[in-house]
């Protein structure tokens, strides 16, 4: 896993400038605030921000109008009005910062606008300048920061609720957990049966790794829980009598129906992202078909004999692919451990006396997304999901993205779906007050 210094505030601004990189637009992330109105946030929008270039006492807070000259995720490069084409005093902020307001905010709240001292004498009549400059331009909606946080409050899952979550120590089973904290839609979960106080797991509230109380019994998934819990679930499922702290099915996203109403069969072969090594797409087998269109998938060549590393995927998961997917897309396919010579699917199917899962069983929907190679994001290290790191989209194959963690070797890369709730726009951690791991910097050999 990628371990960094948690709690460190990473400054995106200089990094974006030196790398000349672009960032994925906020509108590409359906699980973040303001994604559905972000197309309105364009370069040239005006805002009122604190004026930090003053010759009066620092205890007096005055503001000035600034233009958004560049947008990277939530981050914005601003230029105080009056500087014209002079970029020497441009500065970075966050469009969802508490300090960035709509034009008109100062008048509403009795604050004063005063020009920066560097340009104070540039115009003798600032009123005339502002009228000319502002007329016909656009500003952001009022209380933008508060509205973004309010949007997050709309979710149904709350702290203190119980749900079922994948057992991080044995991914083929679920465990019961309680929500201890929610940051920007990300849940900090504590396993209920754990002896360790901090045995926690992080995931987004729309993650496919969490389910309502009683889910494991509904679909037939393995569950590590007390007999008391298992017994209590039966009445909850059949009578729909949930407790006040139970996370219920209506609090989770609905899974799509599989195409054609067809079903996978045990033994069918496919290609799948290895859930324990997300940089690899591997040869996989359907090990078990659960109810409600869920499958237990095993990675060929690395399966534990007791099936403890089987992983649950929905049949419409974007992380499973038909045989031949990697070849068609010129991607590396990791053969089963111990394979000698180049891997050939036809030979392998003959040798294992198995069949490929028919292509028509897979969901082939590719949503319009907007991710392009080279764009920056903030991405969860899924092997240590409490960490969110500075990352780059390096490949886009249909809806599948390869995410590279800046400064780390390629074997830490992760394949991830474009609609995954584990990737965020640049500046998201800052808005949510979540720590962000900056790129790893290689330390030169220290010689005293």
């Amino acid at each position, binding site marked *: 896993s990628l371990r960094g210094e948690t709690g460190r505030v990473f400054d995106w601004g200089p990094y974006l400038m030196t790398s000349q990189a672009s960032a994925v637009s906020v509108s590409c992330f359906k699980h973040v*605030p*303001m994604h*559905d*109105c972000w197309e*309105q946030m364009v370069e040239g929008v*005006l805002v009122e921000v604190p004026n930090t270039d003053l010759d009066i006492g620092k205890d007096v807070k005055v503001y000035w109008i600034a233009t958004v000259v560049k947008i990277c995720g939530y981050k914005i490069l601003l230029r105080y009005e009056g500087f014209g084409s002079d970029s020497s005093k441009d500065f970075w902020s966050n469009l969802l910062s508490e300090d960035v307001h*709509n*034009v*008109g905010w*100062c*008048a*509403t709240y*009795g*604050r*004063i*606008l*005063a020009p920066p001292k560097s340009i104070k004498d540039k115009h003798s009549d*600032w*009123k005339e300048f*502002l*009228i000319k400059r*502002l*007329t*016909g*331009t*656009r*500003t*952001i*909606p*009022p209380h*933008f920061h508060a*509205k973004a946080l*309010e*949007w997050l409050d*709309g979710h149904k899952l709350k702290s203190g609720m119980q749900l079922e979550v994948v057992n991080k120590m044995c991914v083929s089973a679920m465990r019961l957990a309680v929500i201890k904290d929610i940051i920007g839609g990300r849940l900090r979960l504590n396993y209920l049966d754990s002896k360790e106080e901090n045995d926690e797991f992080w995931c987004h509230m729309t993650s496919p790794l969490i389910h309502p109380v009683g889910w494991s019994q509904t679909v037939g998934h393995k569950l590590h829980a007390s007999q008391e819990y298992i017994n209590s679930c039966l009445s909850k499922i059949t009578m729909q009598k949930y407790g006040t702290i139970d996370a219920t099915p209506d609090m989770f996203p609905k899974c799509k129906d599989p195409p054609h109403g067809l079903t996978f069969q045990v033994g069918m072969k496919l290609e799948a992202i290895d859930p324990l090594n997300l940089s690899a797409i591997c040869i996989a087998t359907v090990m078990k078909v659960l109810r409600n269109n869920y499958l237990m998938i095993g990675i060929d060549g690395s399966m534990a004999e007791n099936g403890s590393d089987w992983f649950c995927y929905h049949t419409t998961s974007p992380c499973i692919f038909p045989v031949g997917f990697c070849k068609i897309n010129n991607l590396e396919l990791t053969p089963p451990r111990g394979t000698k010579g180049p891997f050939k699917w036809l030979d392998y199917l003959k040798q294992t006396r198995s069949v490929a899962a028919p292509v028509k069983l897979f969901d082939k929907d590719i949503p319009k997304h907007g991710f392009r190679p080279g764009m920056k994001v903030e991405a969860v290290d899924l092997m240590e999901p409490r960490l969110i790191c500075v990352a780059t989209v390096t490949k886009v194959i249909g809806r599948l993205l390869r995410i590279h963690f800046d400064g780390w070797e390629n074997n830490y890369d992760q394949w991830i779906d474009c609609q995954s709730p584990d990737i965020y726009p640049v500046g998201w951690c800052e808005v949510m007050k979540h720590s962000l791991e900056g790129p790893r910097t290689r330390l030169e050999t220290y010689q005293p």
Partner: protein
Amino acid sequence: GLSDSVKKWEQKQVQIKTLEGEFSVTMWASEDQS
């Protein structure tokens, strides 16, 4: 939804308060701009 109100934009009179006094300008602002 919450962000519906910030999706609609219209021309509005926006108040500006500077050291030289208060005045208004016409800007494109969201529908819920007071």
